[in-house]
């Protein structure tokens, strides 16, 4: 009985289910009435442009400050001071270096090399592929 009723309903609605309504300009009317929506890409590009302008402003300020405060002299002084410090440190090390031999366990070296050459690159690769 249930099946017979279902069949009857199916037959009754069959034609309606197949009915395709002609567009007759409906799509055009919808397209004309679509509101202008701010594209996320557009918003994104606005933010990017502002960020670029801010970066440019910071670079200009940094260059002006560099010129006003004779930045090159400061850098040169730093390099010269650094060079002297490095030479002094080397001299001190060479004079005071220990003369006794230090024993190194080869397994520790192998483990360290393994850590640096295998484990660290593997972990870096894993994390990068998880984030990308």
């Amino acid at each position, binding site marked *: 009985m249930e099946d*017979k*009723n*279902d069949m*009857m*309903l*199916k037959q*009754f*609605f069959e*034609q*309606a*289910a197949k*009915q*395709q*309504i*002609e*567009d007759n300009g*409906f*799509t055009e*009317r*919808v*397209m004309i*009435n*679509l*509101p202008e*929506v701010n*594209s*996320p*890409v557009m918003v994104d590009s606005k933010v990017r442009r502002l960020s670029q302008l801010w970066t440019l402003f910071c670079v200009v300020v940094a260059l002006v400050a560099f010129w006003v405060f004779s930045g090159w002299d400061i850098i040169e002084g730093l390099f010269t001071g650094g060079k002297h410090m490095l030479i002094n440190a080397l001299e001190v090390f060479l004079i005071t270096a220990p003369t006794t031999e230090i024993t190194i366990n080869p397994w520790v070296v192998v483990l360290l090399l393994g850590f640096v050459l295998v484990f660290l690159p593997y972990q870096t690769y894993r994390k990068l592929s998880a984030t990308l």
Partner: protein
Amino acid sequence: MASISDIALVTQVAVFHNKQAFDQLVRKYQSPVRRFFLNQTLGDEQLSDDLAQETFIKAYVNISKFRGMSSFSTWLMRIAYNVFYDEKRKARSEEIETSAEDSPIANKTVGSGSSPLTSGIKMDIHAAMALLKADERTCITLQLIDGYSIDEISKITGIAENTVKSHLKRGKDKLTNYLRENGYGG
């Protein structure tokens, strides 16, 4: 899951606001959406087209919210269902305010106007639909005309699956009686 071509079109609309892509989506789905409204409004073509237009505009504005977890048509029909019920609520409150004319939704003379569904058996369908309560009509049209499963009808309407089954059962019983009384089914 949504079909790949729909996802590609939706992506074009959501990311680049490509109106050509949305035009293709409207062309593809205008018929089922308008047919859904025609069945809900018992053949009021003008109102159906207005509601269908509102549905597509809402879909366009909210397209970035489509996550592709269900098919695009299910998502669109959910919007259509909400648009129809918003309109129905609005019509009901206006009706209460004026207390004069009948609600324009689902209370019109069956088969009035120049609906594409107004000939022969289509008029009978609208007459039969007029016997059903709104929720029953929605569930029946979504299943018997648009071919959605109970699970999809539940997603579209937000009604629990068991309640959908009850609406379908009651609706089918009423329709069967109507068809028998009118000489269908021998």
